[in-house]
């Protein structure tokens, strides 16, 4: 119990994943949803690094994967913020429920 193992990190990352999903589902602000996505990506990164830390052969492929996740998260945040600014310019709010111009 006192010795930290892989399970501890996995449970922590599961909790962070659930928090991120909850944020994505309950916030109506587009930036708030983006923050939820960042939490989910962070939990994935913790999983990658934890599996890497406890693998027996000493490789570090998981850390490289986590590095690519960070790169993709930065790219995704840039595009998402640009889209939010466009949404704000067009409908004057970033409430995602109001962006229903393509609703049939």
């Amino acid at each position, binding site marked *: 119990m*006192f*010795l*930290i*193992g892989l*399970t*501890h*990190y996995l*449970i*922590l990352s*599961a*909790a962070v994943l*659930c*928090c*991120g*999903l*909850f*944020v994505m*589902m*309950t916030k*109506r*602000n*587009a*930036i708030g949803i983006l*923050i939820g996505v*960042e*939490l989910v990506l*962070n939990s994935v*990164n*913790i999983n990658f*690094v*934890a599996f*890497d*830390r*406890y693998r*027996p052969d*000493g*490789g*570090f492929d998981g*850390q*490289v994967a*986590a*590095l*690519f996740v*960070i*790169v*993709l*998260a*930065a*790219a995704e*945040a*840039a*595009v*998402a*913020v*640009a889209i*939010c*600014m*466009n949404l*704000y310019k067009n409908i004057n709010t*970033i409430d995602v429920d109001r962006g229903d111009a393509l609703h049939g």
Partner: protein
Amino acid sequence: MTGRGRETMLHGKSLVVVGFVLAAWASSAIGQFPLAEEMSGQTVDAAHRADEQVLAPSPVPNATVESALFYLFGGALLVSAIGVCVCKSVVRMATWLFGALGAAAVLYFLMGATFLGAIQLIVYAGGTLILIIFGVMLTSKSPWVRFECRRIEFWAAGGVVGVLFCALITLLVGTDWPTPAVAPQPVTIAMFGEALLTTYLVPFEVASVLLLVVMIGAAYLARQERS
């Protein structure tokens, strides 16, 4: 600025200061790990290292420090994540997200992923989070604007997430993970660079093209219309 807004700003600032103090303390505590001695023996091949680790048990003081740091910063991460969930204002959410990102970086240091922890602090906490705060400031008349979801949506989301969490916990605790009791193996920047330019050359190049595309695309999307 309203009184409530000023109060929130004050809370955010004190949170940031506390975060920096904790991070400084953690980095000094991690400095007492036997990472420095292990750094010198990096050229030993992987199989040999694995043999050594199976034979050498994890020293008790380090395990104690590691578990204490894990519970401290894992708790900080969890509290920050829950703070993101419960806050209504976007600026407060972003401040809590800063705490979560910093705590995750300390956990990376704890797991021996020093380069990744530094990248997390520089790119995530320093870049992405600032971008998000810029987004907040540019897309609302007041930064303290709130959007409420309906009560039924709140409870539905809570139920789904609760079920998912219970399922994940059952799965994780029930699985017998292989846990070699080893000290964290530090991965140096040289090893990282070599891997990026040999094994991971194609993803590396694809990522660079992606970043170029994203830079042009974001600038195009966010441009000012000339009338």
